[in-house]
């Protein structure tokens, strides 16, 4: 069918519209007033019967071509669970009015078709039908109800287009995160192999010269950097998917901190570490994740300060049952603008873009881990004289 008019059948107001539009289409085609009325009555009888049962029926009025002849046609589509019998007066009456009447039941919906053959003398052709269609599209609403209805339809269409766009972008996002997750995992295997072979070469029975030994150490250091980056990518995709998981255990915090600082002294040999811890307390933490936080903050402290300067790690207890960990460096510090944005994903300060490599992932992940431990993180900094990163974590309730 070449559709000319569509009307959703929701309430009695739509009956009026159905009748008027049917009359109008028949009139525009040049049918007699009697035929116009017959067609419009049949259509509105069916529309009435459908509206009595449901508010999601749809009426389409248009033309059907069969070889060289055309028929005026109306279809009413409605919920497949609704069945009409001849005891439905409108359904019975409409069948008597139009020469062509058919009820089709499909998987998706039921559809009533009504047809009236057009006389050859009308001489229709696709161009004329196109003009008719366009005229009805551009025709002003019959009444304020139709105006509201049309506006609602437009809004509804826009809303569903927006929903679809949103669904698409979510899907792309999911795919992206899934890709990062698989890619990071795939990247870790070669790093494992690379690190293991390096270690095997270093541990070779026959002594190897100092130069080769130092090259192997460099390969190892770079493999570790690569591993950290891959791990960060993986963490970010987990944060985005909302499935960064924690294995919380109660630990003595001073023991934990001493162990972490000892590891970092080994990894960052060109800086002096000073510690000043308050009395020992118990905290509930994910040890591996908290290790990541300290490695990130201490690593940054060393990265953005000169060799042979010191980095201090201190803790204080607050009355609110929190412990504050503060990491102070004697480095380049940062601008007020940078202190505001430094925890944002992929943020990198303009002044370090060229001087220091990085992807802006570390502090974002660190802040996420601290927040997930119910703590807070912030920074105080003076350009040129160093930064202090503070973060808090709640004390274990048993301590």
């Amino acid at each position, binding site marked *: 069918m070449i559709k000319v008019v569509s009307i959703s059948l929701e309430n009695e107001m739509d009956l009026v519209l159905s009748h008027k539009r049917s009359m109008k289409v028949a009139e525009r085609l040049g049918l007699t007033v009697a035929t116009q009325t017959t067609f419009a009555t049949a259509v509105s009888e069916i529309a009435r019967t459908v509206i009595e049962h449901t508010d999601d029926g749809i009426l389409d009025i248009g033309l059907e071509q069969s070889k060289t002849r055309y028929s005026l046609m109306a279809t009413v589509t409605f919920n497949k669970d609704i069945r009409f019998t001849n005891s439905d007066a409108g359904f019975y009456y409409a069948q008597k009015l139009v020469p062509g009447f058919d009820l089709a039941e499909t998987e998706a919906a039921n559809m009533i078709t009504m047809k009236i053959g057009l006389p050859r003398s009308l001489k229709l052709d696709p161009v004329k039908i196109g003009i008719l269609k366009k005229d009805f599209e551009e025709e002003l609403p019959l009444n304020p109800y139709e105006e509201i209805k049309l506006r609602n339809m437009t809004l509804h269409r826009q809303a569903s287009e927006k929903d679809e766009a949103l669904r698409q972008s979510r899907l792309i996002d999911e795919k992206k995160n899934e890709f990062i997750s698989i890619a990071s995992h795939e990247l*870790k295997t070669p790093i494992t192999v690379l*690190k293991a072979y390096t270690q095997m070469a270093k541990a070779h029975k026959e002594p190897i010269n100092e130069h080769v030994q130092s090259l192997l150490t460099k390969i190892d250091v770079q493999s570790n950097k690569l591993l950290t980056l891959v*791990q960060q990518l*993986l963490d970010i995709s*987990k944060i985005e998917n909302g499935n960064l998981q924690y294995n919380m255990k109660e630990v003595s915090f001073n023991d934990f901190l001493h162990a972490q600082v000892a590891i970092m002294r080994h990894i960052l040999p060109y800086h002096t570490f000073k510690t000043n811890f308050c009395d020992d307390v118990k905290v509930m933490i994910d040890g591996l994740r908290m290790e990541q936080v300290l490695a990130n903050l201490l690593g940054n402290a060393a990265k953005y300060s000169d060799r042979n300067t010191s980095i201090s790690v201190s803790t204080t207890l607050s009355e609110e049952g929190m412990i504050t960990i503060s990491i102070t460096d004697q480095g380049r510090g940062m601008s007020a603008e940078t202190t505001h944005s430094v925890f944002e994903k992929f943020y990198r300060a303009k002044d370090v873009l060229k001087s220091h490599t990085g992807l802006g992932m570390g502090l974002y992940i660190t802040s996420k881990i601290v927040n997930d431990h119910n703590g807070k993180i912030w920074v105080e900094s003076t350009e040129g004289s160093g930064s202090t990163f503070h973060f808090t974590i709640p004390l274990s309730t048993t301590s």
Partner: protein
Amino acid sequence: MNTAAKRIMIFDDDDDIQSICTYILEQDGWQVSVYGNCAGLIDHITAFKPSVILMDNWIPDEGGVNATQRIKSTQDTKYIPVIYFSANSDIESLAKTAGADMFLPKPFDLDELKEIVNKAFHRPQ
């Protein structure tokens, strides 16, 4: 102290991981048997009688979780310690789901590998 022979079975589909583990553990006095998939899993284990099993998370065709669960639900194999190893950062919960006795995250230090395998071997039965 475990008086059984130091026999280990490794399930990992990566050739390099296979050869690294074999090299390191043979040096440490282990008899090593390696498989790249889970075909005939239980039969191979009951034939070789390992004292420790090293199981990768992404082993074809069924994955480490399922394979470990099968080992742990078979009468003849359930007492053999299984060390779960994976590059997946959720390794701890994966190992738990699988019912593995220990886990070793990838990448691992070669000393860590020797250490955990020996720990599994000497673990009280």
